[in-house]
């Protein structure tokens, strides 16, 4: 009776995951969807706690201590993290999930090799799979965290011919797994330990050649890896909710990864090999010699903005690092009060993750209706008086359209130069993540306003107020 009730709870939990994810797909229901999935997870955990195993010692104290500790760490970091550091946070949480799968798989393997538990070849394969996917996800996520946090620079971990090293690791992993499957339990626990070390190193090496700008794609991919390792662990324990949850995440991570690659007009393989990596590709034909970008004073910029009919902001990662989302909203309010039509053009990969910029602007109370996606914005630029580019670079680079030698050639960009005037707020003339110069800065219509995004915006706010 109790058992069937608990099995029903698992079914309920699995259903909440599916419905929760479905609701997360729409802005109006997203928050409830997240809450629903969390509720389902709670039900599943409680059901697992009281599930009547025969002769189980239970050891509840250990579990409760672990849950309280993990829960406190998770809750505390979630409350404390800055909105700009969200991608790193997701990455590190993801890595911990992978580490959990590694621990489970290792314990399973150690008891298998100690002769305490028998696994047929199929089951052994699943355990090895959980171990290797979890391990790659764990160290890969840690390195992605390090890169996003600025702790690790691309050039510190990139070796010449790195893709060959990774191919070597892949072959070595497949070879070792095959070897372990053939050997069975006779080889002893050393086999599992070697595989764990190999795949931990592989995870690190896997992410190493991938440039900082591509980290969102990698995190998304690693997220789906963690889901797969959870699903593999679910197969080990014959637990349906682990299987369903893991596979759902595996599928969602895969879809997101593909969507992000599409937004950058690149193949996943191209990203993984590290097209933007620290290696520095062929120099772009648009390379700049002695061209001079024209500057605009804050006063002039403020006057232009205040007396225009329509303004389009193009926020980029520079806005996020400068924490300038509130400042841009304040400027927006001042301009709107004077009858200026203000909108925002959001490139799919602006910021560090798709949707990252939307989250930041939502934090500053910018209404949805003002946020335009790539195609909507490109249709409107020609009718826009002034485009203000705030801390964005590669996503407004015309080389993507007209310079086949450029590493970002073919990537869809915001065609801001179609507007009547462009003002670029930027700290310096330095290049973006793609490491290439931007011809937009030397365009006739463009004026530069140098300085930190937040300080420049605040200066503009001050100027507009004094008009």
């Amino acid at each position, binding site marked *: 009776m109790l058992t069937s009730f608990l099995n029903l709870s698992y079914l309920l939990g699995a259903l909440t995951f*599916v419905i929760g*994810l*479905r609701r*997360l797909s729409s*802005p109006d229901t*997203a*928050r409830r969807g*997240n809450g629903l*999935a*969390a509720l389902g*997870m709670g039900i599943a*955990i409680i059901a697992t*706690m009281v*599930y009547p195993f025969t002769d189980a*010692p*239970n050891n509840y104290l*250990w579990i409760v201590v*672990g849950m309280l*500790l*993990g829960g406190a*760490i*998770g*809750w505390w970091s979630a409350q404390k*993290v800055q909105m700009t550091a*969200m991608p790193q*946070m997701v990455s590190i*949480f993801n890595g*911990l*999930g992978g580490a*959990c*799968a590694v*621990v*489970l798989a290792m*314990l399973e393997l150690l008891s298998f090799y100690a002769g305490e538990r028998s696994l*047929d*070849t*199929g089951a052994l394969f699943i355990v090895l799979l959980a171990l290797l996917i979890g391990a790659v996800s764990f160290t890969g996520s840690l390195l992605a965290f390090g890169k996003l946090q600025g702790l690790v620079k691309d050039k510190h971990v990139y070796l010449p011919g790195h893709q060959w090293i990774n191919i070597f690791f892949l072959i070595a992993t497949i070879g070792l797994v095959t070897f372990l499957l053939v050997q069975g339990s006779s080889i002893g626990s050393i086999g599992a330990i070697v595989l764990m070390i190999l795949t931990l190193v592989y995870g690190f090496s896997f992410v190493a050649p991938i440039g900082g700008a591509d980290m969102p794609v990698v995190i998304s991919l690693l*997220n789906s890896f963690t*889901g797969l390792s959870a699903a593999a*662990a679910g*197969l*080990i324990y*014959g637990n349906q909710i682990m299987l369903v*949850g893991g*596979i759902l995440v595996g*599928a*969602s*991570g895969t*879809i*997101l990864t593909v969507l*992000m690659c599409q937004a950058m007009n690149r193949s996943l393989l191209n990203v993984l090999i590290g097209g933007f990596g620290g290696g520095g590709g062929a120099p772009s034909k648009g390379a700049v010699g002695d061209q001079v970008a024209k500057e605009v004073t804050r006063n002039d910029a403020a006057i232009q903005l205040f007396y225009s009919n329509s303004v389009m902001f193009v926020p980029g990662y520079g806005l996020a690092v400068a924490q300038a989302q509130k400042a841009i909203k304040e400027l927006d309010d001042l301009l709107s009060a004077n009858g200026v039509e203000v909108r925002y053009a*959001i490139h799919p990969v602006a910021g560090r*993750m*798709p*949707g*990252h910029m*939307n*989250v930041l602007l939502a934090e500053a*109370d910018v209404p*949805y209706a003002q946020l335009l996606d790539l195609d909507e914005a490109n249709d409107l630029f020609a009718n826009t008086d002034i485009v203000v580019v705030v801390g964005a670079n590669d996503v407004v680079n015309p080389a993507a359209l007209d310079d086949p030698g450029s590493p970002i050639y073919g990537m869809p960009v915001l065609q801001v130069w179609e507007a009547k005037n462009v003002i670029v707020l930027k700290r310096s003339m330095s290049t973006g993540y793609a490491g290439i110069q931007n011809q937009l800065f030397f365009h006739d219509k463009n004026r530069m306003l140098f300085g930190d995004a937040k300080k420049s915006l605040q200066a503009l706010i001050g100027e507009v107020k004094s008009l």
Partner: protein
Amino acid sequence: MEAILQFFDNNLLLIYLLLFTIILGFEVISKVPSVLHTPLMSGANAISGVVIIGAIILIRQAAPDDYWTLGLGTLGVVLGMTNVVGGFAVTDRMLEMFKKKK
């Protein structure tokens, strides 16, 4: 080969579940506005913490004097729980800001 077929026979229902869930996962998620990509990734990431269930089962079935398994299992619970609680909380924080729209 025989081992693989054997495994297939023994786990037929699980394999059905696996395949249908993959298709369901693609279908459920394939129509998401890009605004919601980051929260979706974060929410999905929290769900991947479901691996904690395995750690709980492991500890409950371990011998009370098997400190090796208990210790590592508890480590697994800590890791999984951080992923679950942190993941859902962070997602909620992101979505909370979306709600304030007027």
